[in-house]
């Protein structure tokens, strides 16, 4: 069965039939919502998947969290600072109880960090800079790093604090490793957050209730008493469930349905630009491309060819035709909301097929050439359609692109380390800690033999001057100086045509008209912002 065909059918149906408005019958303060994924584990350390982490963050809290504008704000820590270049000191909040009533202590913080880097945790790689965590008195804790770590607090925003006593009592001192059976914490939860786990049916339904003892209640009252989350994978069914009033809010609304959903008077659509940047990458490391008719040399090593590809692609058309307006064209590899984004250099090179054709001729390919394009078809919004548009646009400058659209399970195996079996590919990237450094060190830094640096630099772009700059950025503690360096790095990536940036997607959520939400660019859905009228 084809998802796209199904969507198209539904689309046509909606267009034919004017939907009658339905009086929504909302039960007393129960909020029901649906998404196409399932928060596969309640254990906040087990997976670094964004949806899982975002769901679990309603029950578990970190030391610092993100506010409505994605700025760091105090959560379980009230303040934090560098006491010396390699030490971050956090002061713990007083009087915070876990859901089971036991009070939060420094011991819980020490324990949680240990658990978050133990085997079984998927967060360990993000925290590799931390050498030691030390207790300083009853309410302070020091994170000692092996060098200056300017964005450690960003990473700690995704490390949930668990109760040591509870984990010991239920024998879940570390998250279950991926090859082993689940642990007690997979389907049970005991955090400090605004919601408590009531009922968990994996892959089907998860119910939460309000935590009446939450420390944050005095500043931020929680409006809903109960939350029921249901997984609905078929986007047509998800939209129908919202329109029929069975569900109060859905996210991941397919772009082609947004217009019809919006026309419905009982329903509201929420939008905000997402932090994920979609881009095209090119193999610039091999002497000869794997999938091309050019033999003996690699055309992408020539900057003019990369520029020609860039200028041949009409991102405005992709935005209006493929994305139906739900995209923000970008010249940089990070978007607004990511620390280091610089609007003064966010200027795209012009779409100019004539100039592109000339560049190709100068580079020695007056008649173009053939190249394979790898593209996922179940990963990003309209991923395959974007690639098809790219194929058509490059055809106009004589480049024959052979598109290989495949499922993400196949796609990532092909293009990722250690093989990097691709010549030309489309990928999306969200910098997890919301800092440009994360993008630079993963996508733009020269690949190291142990894949620690440039792990996702599938095209093998290498620029020693940029590497130096990235090293400076990673240890600079003065944020103004640091952001200056980041701007330089972003400009190098842009002007070198290391990648062909396309756009940032727009996050689209939809809800019944009586729901108030705070959509975030991270697609991170925090229930504490939900209000029901």
């Amino acid at each position, binding site marked *: 069965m084809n998802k796209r065909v*199904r969507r198209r059918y539904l689309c046509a149906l909606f267009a034919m039939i004017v939907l009658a408005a339905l009086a929504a019958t909302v039960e007393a303060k129960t909020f029901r919502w649906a998404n196409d994924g399932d928060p*596969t584990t309640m254990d906040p350390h087990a997976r*670094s998947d964004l949806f899982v982490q975002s769901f679990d963050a309603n029950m578990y809290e970190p030391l610092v969290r993100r506010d409505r504008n994605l700025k760091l704000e105090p959560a379980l820590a009230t303040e934090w600072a560098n006491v010396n270049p390699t030490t971050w000191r956090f002061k713990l909040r007083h009087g915070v109880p876990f859901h089971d009533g036991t009070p939060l202590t420094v011991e819980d913080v020490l324990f949680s960090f240990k658990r978050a880097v133990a085997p079984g945790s998927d967060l360990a790689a993000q925290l590799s800079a931390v050498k030691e965590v030390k207790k300083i008195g009853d309410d302070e804790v020091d994170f000692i790093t092996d060098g200056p770590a300017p964005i450690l607090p960003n990473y700690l925003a995704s490390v949930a604090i668990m109760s040591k006593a509870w984990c010991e009592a239920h024998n879940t001192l570390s998250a279950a490793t991926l090859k*082993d059976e689940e642990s007690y914490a997979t389907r049970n939860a005991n955090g400090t957050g605004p919601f408590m786990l009531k009922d968990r049916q994996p892959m089907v339904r998860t119910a939460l209730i309000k935590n009446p003892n939450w420390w944050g209640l005095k500043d931020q009252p929680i409006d809903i008493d109960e939350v029921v989350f249901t997984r609905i994978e078929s986007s*047509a069914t998800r939209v129908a469930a919202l329109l029929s009033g*069975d569900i109060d809010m859905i996210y991941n609304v397919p772009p082609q349905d947004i217009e019809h959903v919006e026309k419905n008077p009982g329903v509201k659509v929420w939008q905000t630009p997402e932090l994920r940047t979609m881009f095209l990458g090119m193999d610039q490391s091999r002497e000869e491309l794997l999938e091309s008719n050019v033999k003996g040399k690699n055309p992408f090593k020539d900057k003019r060819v990369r520029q020609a590809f860039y200028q041949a692609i009409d991102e405005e058309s992709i935005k209006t035709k493929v994305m139906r307006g739900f995209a923000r064209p970008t010249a940089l590899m990070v978007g607004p909301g990511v620390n280091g984004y610089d609007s003064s250099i966010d200027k795209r090179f012009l779409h100019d097929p004539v100039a592109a054709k000339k560049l190709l001729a100068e580079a020695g390919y007056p008649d173009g050439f053939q190249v394979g394009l790898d593209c996922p078809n179940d990963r990003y919004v309209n991923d395959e359609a974007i690639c098809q548009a790219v194929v058509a646009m490059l055809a106009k400058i004589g480049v024959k692109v052979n598109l290989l659209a495949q499922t*993400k*399970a196949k796609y990532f195996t092909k293009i990722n380390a*250690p093989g990097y079996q691709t010549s030309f590919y489309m990928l999306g990237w969200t910098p997890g800690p919301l800092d440009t450094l994360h993008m630079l060190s993963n996508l733009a830094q020269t690949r190291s033999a142990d894949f620690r640096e440039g792990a996702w630099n599938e095209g093998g772009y290498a620029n020693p001057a940029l590497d130096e700059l990235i090293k400076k950025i990673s240890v600079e503690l003065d944020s103004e100086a640091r952001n200056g360096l980041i701007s330089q790095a972003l400009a190098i990536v842009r002007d070198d045509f290391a990648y062909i940036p396309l756009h940032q997607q727009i996050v689209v959520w939809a809800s019944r008209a009586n729901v108030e939400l705070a959509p975030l660019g991270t697609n991170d859905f925090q229930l504490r912002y939900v209000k029901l009228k």
Partner: protein
Amino acid sequence: MLAFIIQRLLQSVLVMLTVALIAFALFNYIGDPINNMVGQDTTQADRERLRQELGLNAPFVVQFARFVGRAARGNFGLSYQQARPVGQIILEKMPATLELSLGAAVLASALGVPMGIYTGLHRHSWVSQGMLAVSLIGVSLPTFLIGTLLILVFAVLLGWLPSFGRGTVVHIGWWTTGLLTVEGLRAIILPAITLALFQMTLIMRLVRAEIIEVLRADYIKFARARGLTSRAVNFGHALKNTLVPVITITGLQLGSIIAFAVITETVFQWPGMGLMFIQAVTFADIPVMAAYLVIVGFFFVIINLVVDLLYYVVDPRLRVEREVAAIG
């Protein structure tokens, strides 16, 4: 008889082994689950170690052998996605699928047989023509479209029935049933109709064709000549003799109903084995996929066996032949 059943059960083992072998040969083409299991910051070394630990580097024949070895001891392994034993997950999902499939089968026969009889007996009435025309829609529209249409009309426009899910379920031991609550009964209506429509059409057309053929037979003519009422002729003689092929097809279709439930369950987010299978495919959750395919294979064998046994009940000639053979 017992020997026959045992022989068939042994055959079922062979069927399941074949299904599993083909499945494992195909799993090579669905990609690598590792990327779905870890985050983007997980190091290459950790990914490689996990791949090694899960045995994903081994050739498919070795993976197949390991699977069979474990399955023989009743262990289907752990789901990559949920980290729970696959056997447990399947037991959890099975009631939903069986209730939906049986509901659809009952619906299909309860409507299909009377409609088939009616259209067979009154071939030229406009009611029959209407039924046949409508039934064409049943065979020609794809299941997901019928399901989406039903949701649109009965959930979105009319607001009578829920658009997804199974409603409230009641636990009876390990079995969960939605048939004992009002929400559960309301929830099963649309998916059951969706799943039943194709089978209903098939049964109706089959019964109709059989009836028309039987009515031409000599013994029906003689029955009429003897002055029997048309009621006795139609139901006592004609209908009885159309039943053997109908039972075969209906029974065999039960297997495909369970298999086709994949699509219906996806459209209605029905938490059964079909939906579980689709979820497993997108995640490349190999243990779940393998176990599902083997179990569906097993169902097919069992259903065929039951159908074969039903012949003896329905068709007296078979019993006679066997007795004669036994005496001889």
